[in-house]
């Protein structure tokens, strides 16, 4: 106990400065030890890798500096198409997902057809591999030669992503709706709120909050899956890397493309982790209500 400690009850908050200093010293020491250990680990791994017999060949084929510098700007430019696909697809996916999830909660018999269609949609598109949907729409629909139908590969590739991810996101939203305790619905109805008002003001806001972390995970995987559109031919980042690599038989452009994806997904993953831990701690703080 420090000599200057206030009399009991004299202050709102009091922390012993000597104790605080020890806590800080220990935190600093822990951080230093961690950094030193990590640094040592990296050095050891680098030495082992670079002294192994196959390393020069690997470096030449995958990590060729010259090749990297000459292809990377082209990759970045091509990646802009991935970004555009993502930016168009994501809002549409959210809208479809939410509508389908809501359609599946309708209970009135008159809505049976809507419910059946929504259920079929989810069952089908969740069961079929995304790349197969892309093939089907991207090659299949233009082959029908229907008047006025777009033939653009990017259009159909994006549509396939939207349909495929819409089914997943619908299930995420449905789980979110189910996660809201029935007593919340009962409390809202007992106040005279209609079914629609109960969903709109009580159930959905809580449901959406509960599913933000899994939704972010789906965003991340959609970001990567924009590369699947490459199979239809448009020059997005993977297709660009493929063209570059096949002209020189050097795989550095693939590594460049991978780096671009990583540069985008790592911050998003950290953000998702942060949201998740925040909502966890908030839930722990919340009592019965």
């Amino acid at each position, binding site marked *: 106990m420090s000599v200057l400690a206030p009399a009991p009850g004299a202050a709102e908050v009091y922390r012993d400065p000597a104790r605080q200093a020890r806590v800080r010293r220990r935190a600093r020491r822990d951080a230093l030890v961690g950094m030193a250990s990590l640094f040592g680990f990296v050095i050891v791994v680098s030495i082992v890798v670079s002294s192994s017999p196959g390393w020069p060949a690997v470096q030449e084929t995958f990590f060729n500096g010259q090749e990297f510098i000459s292809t990377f700007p082209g990759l970045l430019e091509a990646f802009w198409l991935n970004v555009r696909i993502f930016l168009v697809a994501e809002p549409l996916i959210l809208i479809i997902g939410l509508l389908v999830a809501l359609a599946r909660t309708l209970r009135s018999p008159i809505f049976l057809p809507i419910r059946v269609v929504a259920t079929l949609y989810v069952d089908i598109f969740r069961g079929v591999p995304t790349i197969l949907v892309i093939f089907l729409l991207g090659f299949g629909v233009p082959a029908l030669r229907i008047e006025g139908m777009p033939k653009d590969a990017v259009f159909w590739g994006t549509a396939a992503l939207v349909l495929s991810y819409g089914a997943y996101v619908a299930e995420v939203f449905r789980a979110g709706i189910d996660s809201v305790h029935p*007593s*919340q619905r*009962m*409390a*809202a*109805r*007992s*106040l*005279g*709120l*209609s079914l629609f*008002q109960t969903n709109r*003001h*009580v159930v959905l*806001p*809580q449901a959406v*909050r509960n599913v933000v972390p899994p939704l972010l995970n789906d965003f991340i995987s959609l970001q990567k899956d924009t590369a699947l559109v490459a199979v239809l031919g448009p020059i997005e980042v993977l297709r660009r890397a493929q063209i570059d690599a096949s002209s020189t038989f050097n795989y550095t452009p693939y590594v460049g493309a991978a780096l671009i994806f990583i540069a985008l997904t790592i911050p998003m993953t950290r953000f998702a982790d942060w949201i998740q831990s925040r909502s966890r701690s*908030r839930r722990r*703080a*919340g*009592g*019965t*209500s």
Partner: protein
Amino acid sequence: MNSAILSVRGVWKSFDEHPVLRGIDLEVGAHQAVVLIGASGSGKSTLLRCMNGLESVDAGTIILDGDVDVTGFDTDLDVVRRRIGIVFQSYNLFPHMTVLDNIALAPRKVLRRGRAECDDQARGLLARFGLEAKAGEYPDRLSGGQAQRVAIIRALAMEPEIMLFDEITSALDPLLVGEVLDAVRELKSGGLTIVMATHEMTFARDVADQVCFLQGGVVLEQGSPAQIFESPGEPETQQFLSRLPH
């Protein structure tokens, strides 16, 4: 009892093959406080939920104010629930809204009143129950007693003619029970009709105009608190009361 505002007649209800209510008859007079007592599982909660249509009945009628049948097939339950409020043991506040919004939501959306008017009304009610400082808080920052009083205010904001209370103090720390019961007392003295399931016998004796003992799915015995607590007629009632901690 002259004018019954709520008449329960021959109500039956079972869950699957498990009978809970087996012909309940009960008259609730205007401005009266009726207390339901009975063992755990005797159907108090079920009866209260039937009274505002949260649960459907298998047989019988529940007539509100002599004209609306709560159990009718074509009854607009949203209208019934505007007139009969209910408060539950587990407060069921909406965790994503402030206290003020919890209270003002239903008046705004159901009664279609303006936001300013509803907020004023909510603030007035909060002040009446000593909670004006909590208007901007979220429910997870309230004590159990505060949360339950907010739940009462939320139901009250709809200006119901009847309030149903389902063991609203059972989840509370004993030290907090008093403040919630005081709120009920305040409502009773304001002339609100109250039907209440409770295990707080002292409170029942104090506030009730009529006490109903539920047993085996029927109202086995009913009368004034003095009658039921001092000289119960049925042996089962005597047994139930003698088992309670004093």
